[in-house]
């Protein structure tokens, strides 16, 4: 069996042949509808959106008269989270009440509750002291009423000074949100993993008119770690400081959290732990000797698969898969075989400056240690 056959065999064996039943999909729809019914309320108060907008317009990035909006606690209550509402109304939560106007919207940061302050309100699953909750109100400056129908996209997220915002945001911090419209104002209640542990680093709450974090909306200074809004952003964006108590920071816990959050899903250490790992091949190959006559250009079959043979060894492979589409230099992995005397040979490939894919056999001084272990197991 050659590489081409194997590719087809894998396609055949692993191709998506399974289909979810209609019943399963309907179950998902039902559960989503149930949850949305529980979470979303769209009671319309007679308060005119235009009045709200006009009053908010009179303010810029300053405090606002909080009676115009629901409080953070009222917003949580409205979302059916009564315990969280009580937490927001308690003295431990932080009431922010700042408004920023941008791109036709006014964003009002109402309040935040986080960490141990929530532990007294944890009588059900609504409130988790390991989470942070915040409420933002969004209104249109032209007085048009906002609706909670998903027709307008907003990305609302805590950000951490010194951490790349496209890496560390509500999405990666296991976040989510609930929203509802009230009196022409959209209220968004967000939650994510507890960020109190970062309180000594500087925290922000960002909002932009996008589905995901938008690099165009904010600027990240790699040297200072500062995050700022981009005044040239085509949409609307705002950034608030999150006023959490620095005394509640936990640097060790925060570092451990970031380490977990930022680590690749598939740890590279697994690369050398499995039977297919490359282990110390690179060193072994670097210290090896190219077998005279083995260095030659590969040939291609009708499917574009590359073929290399030398002595009794032959191999067919997908050159694009091994060497990338046109990049020069060696492949990141090699095949291991033995010569007639049982000495280890590495078959290596590279693309030379003329773009030709070359193969060569490198005689190794000894089997790489990982492979020796594998051989011993066999």
């Amino acid at each position: 069996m050659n590489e081409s056959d194997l590719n087809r065999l894998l396609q055949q064996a692993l191709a998506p042949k399974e289909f979810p039943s209609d019943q399963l999909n309907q179950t998902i729809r039902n559960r989503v509808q149930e949850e949305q019914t529980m979470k979303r309320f769209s009671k319309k108060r007679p308060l005119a959106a235009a009045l709200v907008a006009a009053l908010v317009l009179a303010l810029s990035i300053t405090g606002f008269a909080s009676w115009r909006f629901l409080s953070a606690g009222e917003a949580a209550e409205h979302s059916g989270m009564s315990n969280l509402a009580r937490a927001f109304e308690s003295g431990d939560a932080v009431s922010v009440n700042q408004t920023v106007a941008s791109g036709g919207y006014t964003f009002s940061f109402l309040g935040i509750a986080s960490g141990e302050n929530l532990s007294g309100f944890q009588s059900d699953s609504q409130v988790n002291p390991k989470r942070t909750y915040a409420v933002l109100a969004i209104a249109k400056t032209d007085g048009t009423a906002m609706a909670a129908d998903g027709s307008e996209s907003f990305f609302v997220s805590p950000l951490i000074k010194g951490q790349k915002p496209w890496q560390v945001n509500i999405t990666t911090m296991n976040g989510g949100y609930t929203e509802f419209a009230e009196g022409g104002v959209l209220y968004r209640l967000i939650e994510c993993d507890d960020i109190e542990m970062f309180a000594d680093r500087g925290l922000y709450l960002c909002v932009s008119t996008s589905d995901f974090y938008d690099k165009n909306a904010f600027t990240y200074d790699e040297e200072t770690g500062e995050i700022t809004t981009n005044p040239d952003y085509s949409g609307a964006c705002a950034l608030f400081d999150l006023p959490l108590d620095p005394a509640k920071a936990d640097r060790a816990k925060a570092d451990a959290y970031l380490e977990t959050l930022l680590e690749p899903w598939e740890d590279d250490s697994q690369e050398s732990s499995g039977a297919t790992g490359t282990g110390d091949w690179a060193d072994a190959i670097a210290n090896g000797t190219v077998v005279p006559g083995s260095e030659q250009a590969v040939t291609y079959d009708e499917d574009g698969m590359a073929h290399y043979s030398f002595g009794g060894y032959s191999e067919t492979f997908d050159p694009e898969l091994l060497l990338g589409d046109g990049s020069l230099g060696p492949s990141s992995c090699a095949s291991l075989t033995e010569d007639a005397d049982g000495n280890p040979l590495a078959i290596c490939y590279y693309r030379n400056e003329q773009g030709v894919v070359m193969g060569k056999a490198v005689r190794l001084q000894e089997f790489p240690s990982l492979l020796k272990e594998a051989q011993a197991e066999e």
Partner: protein
Amino acid sequence: MNIQELNELIRLHGAAVYSFCCRLAANRPDAEDLYQETFLKATELCRKIDRYDNPKAFLLAIALRLWRDKRRKFARRQRIAPMESLPEDGPQGRFTGAKEDQPEEIAIAREQAEMVRRAVEALDDAHRVPLYLYYTAELPIEEIASLLKLPKGTVKSRLYHARKAILKRLEAADHE
């Protein structure tokens, strides 16, 4: 995300996500749980997903993360019954040479496919998951790299090594 958007997501990506869940979970009830939780998590995150933001990769990433979080629950050793089966009309690939009127060839092809699946299951996660993303979810290498937070070259390397390991296993089985 409203119900219409959810329906669209299911229509466009349900099969790929479900097949991917089947490969990861390896038995039907766990796969259905994983599939269901994936879409519920997607709606819970409430991000408005439109087709231009690569919702397929987004859903697969959720499925993978949920699977990793619940690995014990979906432990492969707790497999109840293998779910994989080839269509009744047999495989169509030229590698088998199977024809519909040759039941013996079809049986051989099925056995061959099952051997491949077992060989893939024997790989460690670092090599198995990219294979599923490539062949089952049919994601391009660039998107697999982005989803797994790995360099593109590492994904290629893992696919290559995985295929080599499978080939070696299949050849060993041929000699038995």
